[in-house]
Each structure stands twice: as C-alpha cells, then as structure tokens.
C-alpha cells in the first residue's frame, strides 16, 4: 500500500489532488463524473463579501495549449454561500476550502470571518492574485506591503488553515512566499493565472470584453513549475502547486519541484473526470517507482541538486 496522505498545516489530505478555485464550481457540478469524496480537497469559486456580477461577455479565449478567462469573480457573496451552498456541500468527505477575494482589506477580513464560522470549512485560500478585477485582486499580490497587510489582517481573525494564493505576475515570487510565511500562513498556493491578451485578427479587436484575462492550462506549466521550485527553496511551509496539470505525470512534476499537494484547474473542462485519473496515476507511479510514501518525492529535485 502506497501512502498518499499529505499534510497542509494540521490538515491531513487523503491524497494530494485538489481542484482549483473557479474551475470546479462548488463541487456538485461534477457529481455526475467523479466521486468528490475521493478528492484531496475542493477549492470553491472565488467568494467576496458582496454579490458580484463579474465581467461582461466574452470572458473566454482559447490560446495555444491554454485559455484566457476574465470571469471577474462572479459570485453571489459570502452570505449566499453560507446559507445556500455550504449546507449542500459540507457533507462531502473531503476538505472544502473557500477562495476568499476582495477589493479592500476589510472585505477580505469580513469574508474570512464569516467563513471561519462554518464548522465544515477547515481552511481558506486568500486570493491576492486575481488578475480579472479592477480593484484589489492582483494589486495585493504584486505589492509586498499590500500583501503583508491583508495577510496580517486576515490571520488575526481567521484561526483555521490559511492558504495564500500567489500571483505569478511578479519579478520575484519568493518575496511573496516569504511574506505569507512570515505572516503565519499555513501554506501557499501557486500559481494563479498569468496576465494575457487574445486578439481576433479578423475582427481587429480583443477577444475578451476586458481586453486582458488570466492565462491557464499547460502553456503555463513551465512557469508554474519554476515558481514552485523557487518558493520551495525559500519557505518551509507546504506549497500547493498548480498551473497546467493535465495528468498524473504533470502532478508528479509539481511534487518533484517542491509541491506537497496540487490543484487541478483547466483540465476539468476538458475531462471532467480527470482528477480521479490523476489520483489513480499517482498511485501507479509510486508503485512503479517503488515509492512507499508520496511525501518522499516532494522537492526531490531540490534535495538532489
């Protein structure tokens, strides 16, 4: 038997495979395709204090081995989540994390507080890296002082597992990893999307209503692996890696680079059952390579060099 359990803070995940915020709805959207109880965790969609309509259509553009999105945090607000959605999903036998976003520090704090009251939500992911909103979002993830302020404020009110999601749109991501660690986060997750543009040459205009959007999918995997590797060399808290994971081999690569767990995002759109295959694939990989505990491969390329 291979051990696939990994730990994020005090939480034990039954395996390292989780779903990325904004790509998996709240979970039930995938009930027909997967057994959500088998996941390491579910990161629900970006949640804000107030209801948000998000950006105008079009919000999506296909790009080489990837896609741009400009959803812009459409959601019904944290109260709606607590009242209408939480009761439906709390009974999944997996860890559910709420991805918390906001325009002001105070929004983050209030949203985190509300979510902190929910018994079956063991942690939040602080999204300081959303590229698709005008205010806040990525601004917090690209300025050290803003990052540190918002993490500190949330940490004060939120006592459960705090994960900080970092933006890749920076010169040195390790600075932000360091800040998250210093401010007491239990883990960091990376990467959020890379800021990009798609243009329709025929129509001579941008594809997205917002002009810019966030790039995800296999196209960004090399950048994501690099950043996970950089952060793993910098901080001691666990890293949740993501960016273009399509199969078990990709997930293994992230773990070798230093990720303790992974999130699968865009791949869910192409194969809604992909997470189950990845879990199976991790198991087979360990058997083939004679690995008894998957934690043994975490950061292996750093240990080896």
């Amino acid at each position, binding site marked *: 038997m291979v051990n696939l359990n990994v730990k994020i803070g005090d939480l034990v995940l039954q395996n390292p495979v989780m779903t990325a915020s*904004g*790509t*998996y*709805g709240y979970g039930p*959207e*995938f009930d*027909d*395709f997967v057994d959500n109880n088998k996941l390491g965790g579910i990161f629900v*969609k970006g949640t804000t204090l107030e209801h948000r*309509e*998000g950006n*105008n*259509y*079009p*919000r*999506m553009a*296909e*790009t*080489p*081995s*990837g*896609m741009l*999105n400009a*959803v812009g945090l*459409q959601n019904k607000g944290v109260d709606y989540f607590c009242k209408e959605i939480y009761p439906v999903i709390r009974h999944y036998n997996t860890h559910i994390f709420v991805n918390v976003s906001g325009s002001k520090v105070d929004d983050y704090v209030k949203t985190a507080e509300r979510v902190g009251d929910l018994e079956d939500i063991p942690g939040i992911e602080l999204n300081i890296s959303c590229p698709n909103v005008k205010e806040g979002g990525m601004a917090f993830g690209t300025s050290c002082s803003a990052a540190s302020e918002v993490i500190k404020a949330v940490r004060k009110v939120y006592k459960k597992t705090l994960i900080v999601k970092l933006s890749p749109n920076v010169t040195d991501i390790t600075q932000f990893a360091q800040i998250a660690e210093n401010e007491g986060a239990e883990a960091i997750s990376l990467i959020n999307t890379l800021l990009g543009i798609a243009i329709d040459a025929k129509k001579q205009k941008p594809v997205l209503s917002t002009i810019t959007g966030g790039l995800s*999918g296999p196209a960004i995997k090399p950048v994501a692996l690099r950043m996970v590797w950089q952060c793993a060399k910098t901080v001691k808290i666990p890293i949740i890696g993501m960016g273009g994971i399509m199969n078990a081999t990709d997930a293994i690569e992230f773990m070798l680079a230093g990720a303790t767990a992974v999130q699968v995002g*865009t791949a*869910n*759109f*192409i*194969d*809604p*059952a992909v997470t189950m295959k990845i879990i199976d694939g991790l198991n087979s990989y360990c058997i083939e390579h004679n690995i008894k505990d998957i934690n043994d491969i975490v950061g292996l390329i750093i240990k080896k060099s």
Partner: protein
Amino acid sequence: MKQIQDFNVLKNRRLNADHYILELQSKHPIEDVCPGQFVQIEIPDSKTTFLRRPLSVHFYDKSKNMLSLYVRIVGEGTKYLGMVNENDTLNLVYPLGNKFTLVNKKKVLLVGGGSGIAPLLLLASELQKSGNEVVILLGARTADGLLEINTFEKYGKVVTTTNDGSAGVKGLVIDHPVMKDQNKFDFVYTCGPDVMMKAVGEWAKNLNIQCEVSLENTMACGIGACLCCIQKTVRGNLCVCTDGPVFNFNDVVW
C-alpha cells in the same frame, strides 16, 4: 445523468463546402437527450485546439445508441472534426444544457439559419410527435446554403428564404409570408445568427407569441463550472451551458 462517452463515427456526410453531418454510435447504451441539448466534443489530434467544442444534438435514436451532429466549419475545431473517418472514435460529454419547451397540439414555427438549424431537427420531430402543426422556416444566403430540406420535411412543412432569391422567398426569414400571417402561431423557436434571432423575437413579441431562442455563447466547461458562457438576462448573468442554451426571448438582455 451527464456522461463522458466514446462514440464511433458511422458516417461523416459532407453537405457543402462548409457543412457536414456526423452520425455517431456508441457501443454502450446512451443517455436520453432532449431537443435543445448539446454535447461537448473533443477535437481529436488537433494541434491548434485545446478545449472541447459545444455542438447541439441534431438528431438521436436511443434504440440504436446513435446521435448525429450538424456542423458548420468556422475555425480549426470544426475543420478538424470534419476530417474524421468512419470508425474513428470521438469523445462526448453529454447531454448538456436545458431544453426547448415542448408544447402539445399547437401551431408552432421553427426558424433556423446557418448552423442554427442544428437543434431544430430533433425539436421538429418531437413537436410533431406530440401533435403540433409544425412549420419550419429555414433561411440562407443562397440556395447552396439551404441544407437537409428533405429531412426536415419529414417533421413539418418547410418553407425557405434566400437573400438572393436563388431558392424560396427572396429576403430574410423575417420577410417570408408565413411571418405575415397574424395570430397563426402559438409558439416560435429560433436558432441562428443573433440578428436573425433578434428579428424573429421582436416579431413574436409584438404578436404576443411565445418565443424561445437557443444561444451559442463560447464555452469552456459546458457544465456550469467556469462561468465563461454567461448571458445577461433580466434575472442577472446566467450560464448558457446550464441555464440555457434555450432562453425565453424576453428574458435575454441583447
């Protein structure tokens, strides 16, 4: 229940330079499909596409595990898909989306243009079954664009328009005499270019005829997870892939 299922290509039938019909069959029982629902199809072996492509179910025969897709070539995905051979395997996520409202024993009008005729065949067949008087109005730019008329004729009376008058009535669908006939229809269904749907919808609205439109917003997931396909409606932003693709004309904020 939604499924991820492999289908074999029974036939890839080219209709004209940029339209084809794929007849697909699965080795396993298939799910129930309602008129208006769609599939998310994987584009095999394509270097340039990444996501699945949404396509309406054109027709389906549950007893034979078969369904067909009516496709217009507009870009890489639909081009590649048009090159599949018999016995190739295609992977579908289906059935997706809501469905057209099925009325009984009424006079109904179906208006289709371009690839918008795709969902209308299954709809016509179901409407005929439940005793409606079905009129199908198909519009195209030229005679060459009026496809599958014979097939549609099995399920109702087919009338046509072309912009250049090379077949049917000359003009837009909205110019066809059936549209002039006040109070004739109880329900109208339309799918096609936005301008066409808007014209038909306005016409129906003025005559107080119920009108459903099927939208084709670009999609990533097709299952309500990504919120990319949203449509502004009187009830806020709704997902075309789960709340749609069929909407009441009056609900849509165009």
